[in-house]
């Protein structure tokens, strides 16, 4: 565009400049009026907001006749049988999932980038496999595969932690891969090693701090997944917060909806954190670019 303007001022009679310039006013007229776009956005906004509004209204007792809105369902939630224990179970599972996920994947991904970069496609393919095998099928397979395993693992939160790590692999790979691709990993590690740092020290004090945003997003997404997962927990007959919510829903819709909103707000808070982290990183990057120019 700047080139065209420049040519224009220097050689105003050039037909070559005139012809590409002519369609522009016509295009501006043909462009959809902003009213249509605003209407479209409004319809989408209604579709996405009305259910949330309705759900909040429902949890405040809006569906009961002749009664004002009240917070009683929310405040009464703590006294519901099984609420606290199951919420704690789910929080523990989320913590365990994040810890195991990062302990397994951060060293693996760093090693992959350092020593086996040509195998990245293979590992990516393996990490995407959980997308190709539905959770229902995994649940079915767990029963068949781990029949002989001790009940302490297969009949407890442990099996859920172990399997949620698998379910988290696709986005964990993407997040850590992006983080490691963005730093001069080889140089950093060679520098650390030549200064006498051992492998664990290099990993912990050089690699981890430099990809902490990527690690944080992977961890947060893993926590959100573990907090909301229902399929495997329900089919393995294990009690977690979402399973409790479903059972509550068979007796009291208001309690179940309130518990659902709690899961939602918790995981949204976590996911907002991820998008905030991501924005902070791109903002920094664009700042750097602008400076270098």
């Amino acid at each position, binding site marked *: 565009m700047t080139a065209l303007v420049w040519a224009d001022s220097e050689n105003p009679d050039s037909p070559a400049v005139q*012809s*590409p310039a002519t*369609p522009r006013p016509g295009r501006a007229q*043909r462009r959809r009026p902003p009213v249509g776009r605003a209407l*479209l*956005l409004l319809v*989408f906004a209604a*579709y*996405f907001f009305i*259910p*949330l509004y*309705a*759900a909040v209204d429902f*949890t405040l007792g*809006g*569906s009961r006749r002749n009664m004002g809105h009240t917070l009683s369902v929310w405040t009464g939630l703590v006294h519901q049988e099984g609420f606290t224990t199951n919420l704690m179970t789910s929080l523990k599972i989320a913590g365990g999932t994040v810890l195991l996920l990062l302990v*397994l*994947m951060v*060293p*693996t991904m760093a*090693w992959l980038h350092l*020593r*086996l970069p*040509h*195998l990245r496609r293979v*590992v990516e393919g*393996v990490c995407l496999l959980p*997308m*190709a*095998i*539905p*959770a*229902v*099928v995994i*649940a*079915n*397979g*767990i029963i*068949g*595969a781990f029949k002989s395993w001790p009940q302490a693992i297969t009949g407890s939160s442990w099996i859920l932690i172990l399997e949620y790590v*698998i379910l988290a692999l696709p986005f964990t790979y993407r997040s850590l891969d*992006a983080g490691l691709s963005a730093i001069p990993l080889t140089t950093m590690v060679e520098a650390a090693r030549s200064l006498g740092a051992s492998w664990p020290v290099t990993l912990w004090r050089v690699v981890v701090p430099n990809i902490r945003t990527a690690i944080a997003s992977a961890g947060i997404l893993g926590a959100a997944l573990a907090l*909301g997962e*229902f*399929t495997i927990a*329900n*089919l393995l007959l294990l009690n977690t917060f*979402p399973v409790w*919510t*479903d059972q509550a*829903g068979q007796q009291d*819709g208001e309690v179940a*909806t309130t518990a*659902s*909103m709690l899961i*939602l707000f918790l*995981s*949204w808070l976590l*996911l*907002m954190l991820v998008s905030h982290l991501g924005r902070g990183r791109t903002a920094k990057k664009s700042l750097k670019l602008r400076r270098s120019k």
Partner: protein
Amino acid sequence: MTASAPADVPAGVGEPTPAAAASPLRPAGPRAGRLGRLGRARRTRPADLLGLAPFAAYVAVFLGAPAYAVITAAFKDDAGHATLSNVTTTLKDPYRHAFTVSIELSVLSAVLGAVLGLALAIAVSGARRDGFVHRAVTTASGVLAYFGGLPLAFVFLATLGPQGLVTKWLNSAGYNLTQHGFVLWNMAGLVLVYLYFQIPLMLLVIFPALDGLRPQWEEAARSLGASRRQYWLRVGGPLLAPPFLGALLLLFANAFAAYATAYALSTGSVPLVPIQIGSVMSGNVLAGQENIGNALGLWMIVVVGLVVVAYTLLQRRTARWLR
């Protein structure tokens, strides 16, 4: 979205060693092949592979073993003898019906989600990149795309269920939803609910591709005399086609594998394949058909697996021009 270098080298040529690059006239004989193999051998040391052992072992045990268990059990009868009867039984009713309903729901919600998502993405991409609308839609879709499962079912029950807010609004306006054949757990209802996570997922997948279409390409085409229609037909359309198709496949797989939402909406009564598997697991199965659930699982892996593989390939094609 970084394409690693080796993938761009044609298969069979091997790694371009510095020697080969320096003398392009060297005939590509067996020597070149040996050089290539040597180069590769130097890069993959067995000791290095050991670093991947924990990861490989973990995936093998906690994903490989369950998948293997499902696939082998699909070909066994209750006594453990080899049989094809499970696999063939699952192709007949009532399971055939479940597959039809599942596929219908997945196709409908994927196509509608992809088209509506693309429309929304185009409407938003016209807005300023750092403006409120663009930022709000990107953040919201990042959050809503992961919002499937159980909570979604209860949110929609509070909206369009028998006691739902919108149901009541419509009732007071003289329109009874149930009389007009709408319930949340029939096809129309499920599609409406599934779109709540399908549209945001479409936005997440298609935004990078849409943002990656550089305005310079359109300017170049138009300065060469192409009309706007010609640009979309010959340049923009073909560039967007692979990511759009890929997104369509991802949405299909996403809907096909979903269990929790439909389960909670209908308390397990909708005839969908995942719900049938769950119901078999809970013991609702005839004697002699204990492995029906595994056979259904096998078919699910086949369908979703093929779709995901196709999606990954299309995604890699897009990654070539998307920077």
